[in-house]
């Protein structure tokens, strides 16, 4: 394991480009184009770019995994040889799975449509929909994180919004529970879309006459343990007419998908993901994820998984 190299790679990318892996900024907001969402407003949808980045991160992890398996030379040397120079990750992430990119964009459109169906008025940030900087925080790069968080906070404040709607567990946690500690005077209200849908559940209508199916729920650690979001997804899935099954480890005692160490140790990450996938498959039913990192990590080990937003939109829109 070459911690130094991986850290410098991610940190340098965030500092230089704003994202942990190089990606064209248009790819971050192009999902919203067909929806004609207004710009800004009292409430704004802030994706933090994590869903959009997940396929590119996955492509990088697959590359690191292939290097990890080779014997000759240290990882640094092997990485340098394959990339030319460390920062040039473009050709690695260019191999991102187009199917995965399409899928995460569809998740975001589903989330947006569900919010509209629930009567929520909100706008979008488009090119100001910045990455939250969560990887810098996780890795203990405090100063770099504080600088990045300040930029994100200023951009969100400039939008004029008082309510920020988040869509994934990591961005929700970092914005709601970490930003107030790192950014002086950060006072924006942060709510996750599942919480908002749950509050407005009476405005939603399940489709009539369609047979439900069984789903098994995989709670993300950062929803269940850090942000207390456990009941909302279950309530929404049941309301949508689906039969919700619990895996052996669920709710607050959920089992991590292994995603957070995917770059530092792809093989460790894989073994944890395989263990979790077996557990989920053992229950029977379609596997529901709610986090882009869980989604790509369980997929990397062969899991057939689908985001909660797709299940809900199919039944509620």
């Amino acid at each position: 394991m070459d911690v130094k190299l991986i850290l410098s790679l991610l940190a340098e990318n965030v500092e230089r480009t704003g994202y942990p892996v190089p990606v064209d900024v248009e790819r971050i907001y192009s999902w919203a184009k067909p929806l004609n969402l207004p710009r800004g407003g009292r409430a704004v949808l802030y994706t933090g770019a994590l869903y959009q980045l997940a396929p590119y991160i996955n492509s990088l992890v697959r590359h690191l995994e292939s290097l990890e398996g080779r014997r000759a030379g240290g990882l640094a040397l092997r990485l340098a040889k394959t990339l030319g120079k460390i920062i040039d990750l473009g050709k690695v992430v260019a191999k991102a799975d187009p199917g995965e990119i399409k899928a995460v964009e569809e998740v975001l459109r589903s989330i947006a449509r569900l919010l509209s169906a629930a009567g929520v008025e909100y706008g979008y940030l488009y090119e100001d929909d910045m990455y939250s900087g969560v990887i810098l925080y996780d890795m203990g790069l405090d100063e770099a994180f504080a600088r990045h968080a300040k930029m994100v906070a200023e951009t969100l404040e400039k939008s004029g919004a008082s309510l920020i709607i988040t869509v994934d567990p990591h961005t929700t946690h970092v914005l709601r529970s970490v930003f107030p500690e790192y950014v002086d005077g950060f006072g924006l209200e942060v709510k996750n879309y599942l919480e908002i849908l749950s509050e407005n559940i009476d405005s939603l209508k399940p489709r009539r006459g369609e047979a439900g199916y069984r789903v098994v729920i995989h709670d993300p650690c950062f929803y269940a343990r850090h942000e207390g979001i456990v009941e909302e997804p279950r309530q929404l899935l049941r309301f949508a007419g689906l039969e919700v099954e619990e895996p052996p480890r669920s709710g607050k005692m959920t089992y991590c998908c292994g995603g957070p160490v995917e770059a530092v140790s792809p093989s460790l990450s894989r073994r944890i993901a395989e263990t979790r996938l077996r557990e989920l498959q053992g229950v029977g039913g379609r596997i529901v994820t709610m986090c882009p990192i869980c989604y790509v990590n369980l997929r990397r080990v062969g899991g057939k998984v689908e985001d909660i937003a797709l299940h809900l939109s199919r039944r509620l829109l």
Partner: protein
Amino acid sequence: MAAWGRSRLLEEAGKCAYCGFCEAVCPTLPYGRHRGYGPRGRVLLTAHLARGGKASPEVLSSIYTCLTCAACTLKCPAGIDIPALVRAARSLLVAVHEKTII
């Protein structure tokens, strides 16, 4: 929260009674090479680093393979926030070894 300094880190790590209840729920421990891949080992090693101990490759592996999933904190009778402790150790490593870590 903003990462803890050395003294807070030592104070938190000092609450550990080494009971090991945390180890049963840690996803990384069963697949790691040693106990450093579990919460109890990580708490011990954060204290080691806070006292100025050496950041060997295996210490780095221990600290950087934590998922910060927080399953362990629900089992800890002393109520140690282990993900916060691990992030503090990472932050300390960056601050102390800036030239060597990144």
